[in-house]
């Protein structure tokens, strides 16, 4: 198989998609997190400030979802087809929540009536919570493996099969992680009483995250042994969980000192490292078959042709810096604390 810098193309594409998903989780992670906190703020002014903290950027953040989805479709068509059709119900719920969240953000400020704003506040917050949770649920199913039979055909049937104990745990952990991440982002964008309130909420959410992360890890080690194979075979890889641990520990340490930029940096790093762990646990498998391991989907049987992967790598090499450039431009323009004006939501 053709290689580039010593790695074959499917492996490269696995890394590219991993990077895209990490970017997506970091960016949409804080705005889902911020949304999840929304109902905890009681005053109209606080809610407006919190909403406008994500106002100019949420749409740009969702671009990463679109690019990640397209990259998965093009790079690993077999995985895209099997994963999306087997996780039909959670993906449909995810889509409906994405829609509800977007219209809640857009429409909330368009009328003054209290019931109107209250309705969209609930829509915004509940859909943010569900989105974070559903992402975790889908991840949990991927980690655990699903019932894939011959010809990459999903053999499960139940409507709610995706809601199994492990998926509930990963869902909760993801939600908790995004709430920590979102609270730190809001701390960077707010002042006054809202800021003080957020410092308290952040403390609680960090404890909640650590507990649910600990339980999920324990369950993974005990009941899903195939995920730790890579670490057993190569002890150097243990550096990654170690780094993750230190990165997580830095979040409360810096937050306590009021260094929220640093804390935000480490919550971003934590998300990236957790996804690196996922990548190590899975590779080279992408979707483990619980029916028979020979039916599993891996980077080789799922990959598009080498030619396509090479074209796509070129696209990422050209387009990636551009995307980072636009992202930098918009975050720079709206840096600092939120200022409300007549164009705000």
């Amino acid at each position: 198989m053709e290689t580039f810098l010593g790695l074959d193309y499917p492996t490269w594409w696995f890394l590219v998609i991993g990077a895209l998903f990490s970017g997506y989780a970091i960016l949409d992670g804080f705005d889902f997190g911020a949304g999840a906190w929304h109902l905890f703020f009681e005053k109209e002014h606080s809610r407006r400030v919190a909403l406008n903290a994500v106002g100019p950027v949420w749409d740009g953040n969702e671009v990463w979802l679109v690019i990640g989805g397209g990259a998965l479709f093009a790079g690993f068509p077999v995985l895209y087809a099997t994963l999306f059709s087997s996780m039909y119900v959670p993906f449909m719920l995810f889509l409906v929540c994405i829609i509800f969240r977007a219209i809640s953000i857009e429409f909330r400020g368009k009328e003054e009536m209290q019931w109107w704003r209250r309705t969209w506040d609930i829509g915004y917050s509940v859909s943010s919570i569900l989105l974070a949770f559903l992402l975790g649920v889908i991840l949990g199913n991927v980690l655990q493996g699903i019932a894939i039979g011959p010809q990459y055909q999903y053999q499960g049937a139940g409507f709610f099969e995706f809601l199994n104990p492990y998926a509930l745990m990963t869902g909760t952990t993801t939600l908790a992680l995004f709430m920590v991440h979102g609270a730190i982002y809001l701390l960077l964008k707010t002042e006054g009483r809202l800021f003080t309130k957020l410092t308290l909420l952040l403390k609680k959410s960090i404890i909640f995250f650590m507990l649910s992360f600990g339980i999920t890890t324990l369950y993974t080690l005990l009941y899903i042994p195939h995920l730790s194979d890579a670490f057993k075979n190569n002890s150097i890889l243990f550096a990654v969980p170690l780094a993750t641990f230190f990165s997580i520990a830095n979040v409360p340490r810096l937050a306590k000192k009021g260094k929220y930029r640093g804390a935000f940096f480490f919550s971003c790093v934590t998300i990236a490292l957790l996804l690196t762990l996922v990548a190590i646990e899975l590779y080279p498998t992408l979707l483990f078959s619980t029916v028979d391991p020979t039916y599993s989907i891996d980077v080789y049987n799922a990959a598009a042709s080498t030619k396509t992967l090479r074209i796509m790598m070129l696209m990422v090499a050209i387009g990636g810096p551009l995307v980072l450039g636009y992202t930098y431009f918009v975050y720079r323009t709206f840096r600092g604390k939120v200022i409300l004006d007549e164009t705000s939501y």
Partner: protein
Amino acid sequence: MDVEILARIQFAFTIAFHYIYPPLSIGLGLVMVVFESLYIRTKNEEYHVLAKFWTKIFALTFGIGVVTGIVMEFEFGTNWAVYSRYVGDIFGSALAAEGIFAFALESGFLGVLLFGWNRVKPWVHLVSTIGVFLGSMFSAIWIVVANSWQQTPAGYHIVGEGFNARAEITDFWAMVFNPSSVDRILHVWLGAFLAGAFLILSVHAYYILKGRFVAISKKAFKLTLVVATIFSLGQLVTGHSSADGVAKNQPAKLAAMEGHFDASGPADMYLLGWVDKQNQEVTGLKIPGGLSFLIDYDFEAPVTGLNAFPEEDRPSQLNAVFQFYHLMITIGMFLIALSLYACFQWWRGKLFDKRWLLWTFVVTAFLPQIANQVGWFAAEMGRQPWVVYGLLRTSDAFSQAVSANQVLFSLILFMVVYTLLFLLFVYLLNKKIKHGPYDDSEESDRPLTKEITGVLTGN
């Protein structure tokens, strides 16, 4: 109902709903760039007000376009798994290119376009507006490329057999510039420009009729009328070359569009008609040999008809394809006539004197939208029974792992959510239009207010 038909209904419903919004964003984007450039050049505050006003309406359409678009990207995998595996190499590349080269540009600059009026210099804001507009144009390119490949596959070869067969790219640029891409991209762009332009014409005609914001509306109306006239005429050219392409590459579709059954006789062109599939007859008003003439400039030239194809390779909904296609053309002709007539009245200096003409413009906002929709219905239904023309049948392409109940559940969910979304959209659009182009904070800048204060204070 079975999974296939439910999946098709769901796809048709979600994409038709989605397609209300992106054309509006593209069309409004074009006129916003014009308004804002004029503001920067002339420093005339009126253009600034217009640019800001239409940006607000743009925001409404853009947001809905984005989220309903994400639905489309996911639906290939959820409902059309076999298709996704088959075309992932090609279709997936086009979607990924759209994300990275187009959508990122659009959404990156969107924040500055909407919220950056007071934060960046005017020219940086203009650059952002242009960035968003170009991004939306590029989006259209990649999406139409992906769809055109389904109509006229090129630059690929088939690897594997039976279940494992998949299309792989052999020549990327041949895939991108497949025989129908360029014609269809231009046709879609112009359709989008018309959707935006006629909405703007409609709103400003309404203001003029109601005697509100008259001076600024007349300015906006004239400028946009120029845009509408150029592109409605241009649509004639792109439409003709698209149809030429269909004649060459998808003869069964063309035959369905005109209800032409005879395997290789001269073909008529209908102005309106009704297709009787059973008796292979079309009744209606026709130009005998018209289609032959349009293709070969000869009224007697033979055109491949439906009977040249085996029954199972013909589109099944002949009358629907025929009607959609003809409705699109009728609307296109009407838009040309209306904009030329308006230009003529403008030349005579009587553009704003005829109330019936302005009222016609008010209701015409819907027509380009309808033409865009039915045009796509004709294109997609005319491609049947294939999902990839000549390669993969629609009946083989859907997800085997998904049950009818699941699709029914999601279909009902989308119907409820989209109905709600549409009602809210109409309500808020109406509210913004009623409110008008001036911000409340700029109340004192309104021409009428200025005049009154002027009179009162004796200035």
